[in-house]
């Protein structure tokens, strides 16, 4: 390999590492220096390109939702109607619970446990308390669901992660189970609305639901006001 050939290769792909080039660079100080220069330049090119040219100053044009999103939402809507028709779904609450969980993918892979303060704040927004959480809470968020903010928790159990939605404003008569989109779930009535528990493994849903029924309490008026 000649110097000209080496520089052409390095100039086009500074990170390239063919054996032929490596051998040439090892024996050619000038080409070795050239490669170092190009690697440094390339790092800066990357920085220049990666920094969003529009950054925070990007002006979103005043339009309605993008067309692809509209198409997507229309299709999802149509599929939803078909699904409801096909299954004659009586338990639309379960379906909406599943849809809500699917639409919140960041809850699927929590990395750090939620702090007690975070969990308390999420429950406080719904006028609730969690007394002695039965499992470690990995994710806690107050979510808008059927016209109300509801606590959306993900807890780590011996069988893996499980999602808990505390539905204070959804009253159901009896325990109901469901299996949808690969999720097992149970809806149980509680003294304060109902509780939905979902997980990939249906083994211990009832146990978790029972523990949550006991642990969740309404706040006192004074506390709720605070």
């Amino acid at each position, binding site marked *: 390999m000649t110097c000209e050939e080496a520089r052409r290769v390095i*100039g*086009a792909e500074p990170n390239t590492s063919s054996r032929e080039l490596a051998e040439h660079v090892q024996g050619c100080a000038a080409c070795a220096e050239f490669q170092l*220069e190009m690697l440094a330049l390339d790092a800066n090119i990357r920085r220049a390109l990666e*920094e969003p040219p*529009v950054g925070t100053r990007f002006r979103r044009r005043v339009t309605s939702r993008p067309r692809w999103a509209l198409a997507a939402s229309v299709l999802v809507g149509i*599929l939803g109607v078909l699904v409801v028709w096909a299954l004659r779904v009586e338990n639309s609450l379960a379906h909406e619970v599943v849809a809500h969980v699917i639409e919140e993918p960041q809850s699927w892979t929590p990395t750090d446990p939620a702090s007690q303060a975070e969990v308390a704040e999420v429950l406080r927004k719904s006028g609730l308390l969690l007394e002695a959480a039965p499992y470690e809470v990995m994710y806690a968020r107050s979510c808008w669901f059927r016209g109300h903010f509801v606590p959306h928790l993900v807890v780590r159990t011996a069988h*893996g992660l499980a999602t808990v939605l505390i539905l204070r404003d959804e009253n159901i008569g009896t325990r109901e189970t469901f299996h949808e989109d690969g999720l097992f779930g149970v809806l149980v009535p509680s003294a304060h609305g109902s509780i939905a528990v979902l997980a990939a493994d249906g083994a211990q849903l009832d146990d978790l639901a029972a523990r949550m029924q006991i642990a969740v309490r309404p706040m006192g008026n004074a506390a709720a006001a605070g």
Partner: protein
Amino acid sequence: MRNYPSEVPVSSAGASKAAAGADLRVSSLFEAMRADLLRFAMWLTRDRALAEDVVQEALLRAWRSRDALKDPACARAWLLTIVRREHARLYERKRLEIVSLNEALEKEAGAFVSRDDSDINALRSAIFQLPIEYREPLTMQVLGGFSVDEIAGELNLSASAVLTRLFRARNKLRTLYGLSAVADGLCGEVPP
């Protein structure tokens, strides 16, 4: 740990529900990629409004072809390719109004305000001024992570031609840093 396996019920109704769930996931995936796509399109078009149009059309096209996306891990490269093709189509469909480079730079000046590094800012301006035949493969390689062969396939060029363009793009940018440009004794691009 992912909480939701991909197993779906086998009934036709179950399949419909699974499809709805899959569509929701694809929709979320597209939305998550939108910023990356806009950045890429911006470097191709040099016009933020045009970049938005390109991305919007590309996402619409991607949505219609979403079944072709078998592996979500490939979504980024897949979508970047669609954006690039949409940008190319835009040029095929209509002759774009030609604006002077100075005008374009002035128009987008706010987009190139560097927070803390004047060198990077200068480099960004220099990339912005590169002709499309150099800017496109460079952006695809550095920002998109495409290999030379992939770029060659996309641009319908030979690998040798792509290497030449990448070399020349970087050679032009070298001078910005006070580095001497390498003698370009290349024989020109080999037609695909």
